[in-house]
């Protein structure tokens, strides 16, 4: 309830039973089933906004913002792969499935990423020719469902990402409701049309890190050790998961924080499972450093990255690159105000829409409806994504130069301070104006 109503009418809304909570109780009472939605966590969490950079002054030299170079390229997968991926900017596109997204949206992601020399990623539905055709660097996800998985596509990929979980639902499998299982989606997934598809949460043919090591070796054998193998985990017990992923033989580890998006899962899962991205990065970096593998096994971080400051902060905390999903969709046109009237017709509003699973997205992105899909021009949307990626990069470079760094990966935790005790403890950087890092000895 807004403050003005409280003041004006003397009404007081319960902080525990606020209107959102009451609405959900009524919805549950009416339907008898949990709420399913897309997007990521909507609750307020400690995040990158709680960190600030310490720009150079007397004790550090800054670099000229417009003249001195600041490298942004990153090599991924140099540990074992014969052909590591070199991306021109440290921002990649996270895995999102054809099925969850329209073919045009997938094509636009590929176009935008390719313009900027970075990679895009398949999802829980196999590799489409449009996506492969428009993506100069394509990461092929290896998921528990194995929908559409085949050795030919595996060999066409520039990297393979073994997905153990995602930040929006660590411990849960994918979900694609019947409205979006069109003939093409059904064929790619070998499912009946219109079925509510429930992906498995565990891989079907291995359990545990020792098995995973053998699985990774199998994937390397099938691809003749050519391409990098990533392991993606949802952020929970990140310190241990990263150590086990290194032990299992990963070239690259992707850690997805709880702000990471999804096409569909239970609301209770999105809001109550996992840890914030901010808290996950230091755990991952610590694990890599203790194993002597930091920078040898590259770390990609995702979950709630929105601007160049977020990119730079991730890298200062020790990431080699980041991945974006929700932000990329917004750049394409997701939740655009020009469709506000149509969002209202389906019970939502521009900026609030999260029912991706219903397949009615007026912006033509999270839908398989042929008429809605036409609204997204993949060339124009791809150009917008490229623009956005460019801005992320320029912003991150601006901050790095201000800190005196000629490479984004030279940013370091010493360049950061925290605004809150919570973020100081999670990010393991001092509270601003102090030398205090909660939980660490002086």
């Amino acid at each position: 309830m807004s403050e003005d109503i409280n003041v004006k009418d003397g009404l007081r809304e319960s902080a525990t039973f606020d209107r959102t909570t009451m609405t959900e109780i009524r919805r549950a009472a009416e339907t008898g089933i949990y709420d399913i939605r897309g997007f990521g966590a909507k609750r307020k969490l400690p995040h990158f906004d709680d960190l600030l950079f310490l720009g150079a002054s007397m004790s550090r030299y800054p670099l000229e913002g417009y003249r001195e170079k600041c490298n942004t390229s990153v090599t991924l997968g140099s540990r074992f792969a014969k052909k590591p991926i070199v991306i021109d900017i440290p921002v990649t596109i996270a895995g999102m499935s054809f099925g969850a997204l329209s073919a045009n949206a997938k094509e636009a992601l590929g176009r935008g990423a390719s313009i900027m020399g970075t990679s895009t990623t398949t999802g829980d539905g196999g590799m489409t020719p449009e996506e492969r055709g428009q993506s100069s660097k394509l990461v092929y996800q290896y998921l528990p469902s194995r929908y559409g998985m085949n050795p030919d596509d595996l060999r066409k990929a520039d990297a393979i990402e073994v997905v153990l979980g995602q930040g929006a639902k660590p411990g849960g499998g994918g979900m694609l409701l019947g409205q979006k299982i069109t003939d093409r989606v059904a064929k790619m997934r070998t499912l009946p049309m219109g079925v509510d598809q429930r992906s498995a949460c565990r891989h079907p043919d291995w359990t545990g890190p020792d098995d995973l090591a053998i699985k990774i070796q199998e994937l390397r054998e099938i691809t003749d050790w050519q391409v990098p193998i990533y392991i993606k985990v949802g952020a929970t017990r990140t310190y241990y998961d990263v150590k086990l992923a290194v032990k299992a033989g990963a070239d690259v580890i992707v850690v997805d924080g709880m702000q990471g998006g999804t096409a569909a899962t239970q609301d209770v899962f999105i809001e109550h499972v996992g840890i914030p991205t901010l808290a996950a990065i230091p755990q991952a970096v610590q694990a890599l450093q203790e194993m002597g593998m930091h920078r040898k096994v590259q770390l990609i971080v995702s979950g709630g990255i929105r601007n160049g400051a977020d990119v730079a902060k991730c890298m200062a905390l020790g990431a080699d690159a980041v991945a974006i999903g929700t932000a990329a969709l917004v750049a394409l046109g997701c939740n655009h105000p020009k469709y506000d009237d149509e969002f209202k017709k389906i019970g939502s509003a521009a900026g609030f829409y999260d029912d991706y699973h219903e397949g009615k997205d007026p912006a033509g992105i999270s839908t398989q409806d042929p008429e809605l899909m036409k609204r997204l021009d993949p060339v124009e949307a791809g150009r917008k994504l490229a623009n956005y990626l460019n801005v992320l990069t320029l912003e991150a470079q601006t901050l790095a130069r201000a800190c005196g760094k000629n490479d984004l990966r030279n940013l370091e935790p010493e360049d950061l301070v925290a605004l809150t005790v919570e973020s100081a403890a999670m990010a393991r950087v001092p509270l601003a104006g102090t030398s205090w890092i909660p939980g660490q000895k002086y």
Partner: protein
Amino acid sequence: MKTIDLQKHTVRDLNQALHDQAVECTIREWEVLEPKGQHNIACGLDQNLAVDIKGHAGYFCAGMNKKAHVTIFGNAGQGVAENMMSGTVRVKGDASQAAGATAHGGLLVIEGNAGARCGISMKGVDIVVKGNVGHMSCFMGQAGSLVVCGDAGDALGDSLYETHIYVKGSVKSLGADCIEKEMREEHIEELTELLNRAGVEEDPKSFKRYGSARQLYNFKVDNASAY
């Protein structure tokens, strides 16, 4: 015939030599000696080869097989013929868990018993097991057929989609949404053809058929207890 001794050569050497045949097939028949349970033997094949593995194989033997005909003269470890696309894989002995997992096509024959989760998430492969299968076999099976000439363990066909399951012996229990179905003439024909392809002599009329009740295909409040 080309013979490779895995005590003298690595699995990498073997697989690369087999993969090279996909470019230009110069040797069609291969014999692998002394495998001694090593993992990932003959995976990712993409040519009409005949590969005889003379001994026990470890995990993921013949994984993602296309076109090739692989015979294991011993037992197979976890995930034999996982995600197979086409061709044939035959295990003369027993197979560990997740045999034929997620396989899209081809024929997997296990002459002994198969462990848990045989045919898990299968997507079009045909699997014939002369012995028994373990618990949770055919979990989330999407397409293809699983034939069990012996007994099936607990929770057979749990959350099944459209895989056809035929069992001659007993079924300890059926999984969620899996039911016994009528054995009609077209199913007798299908099973006869499967047994013939597998080279297994059994009377098709002595089998029972199991399939999806299709009650979990769409979320319903009334099914909440099954989720």
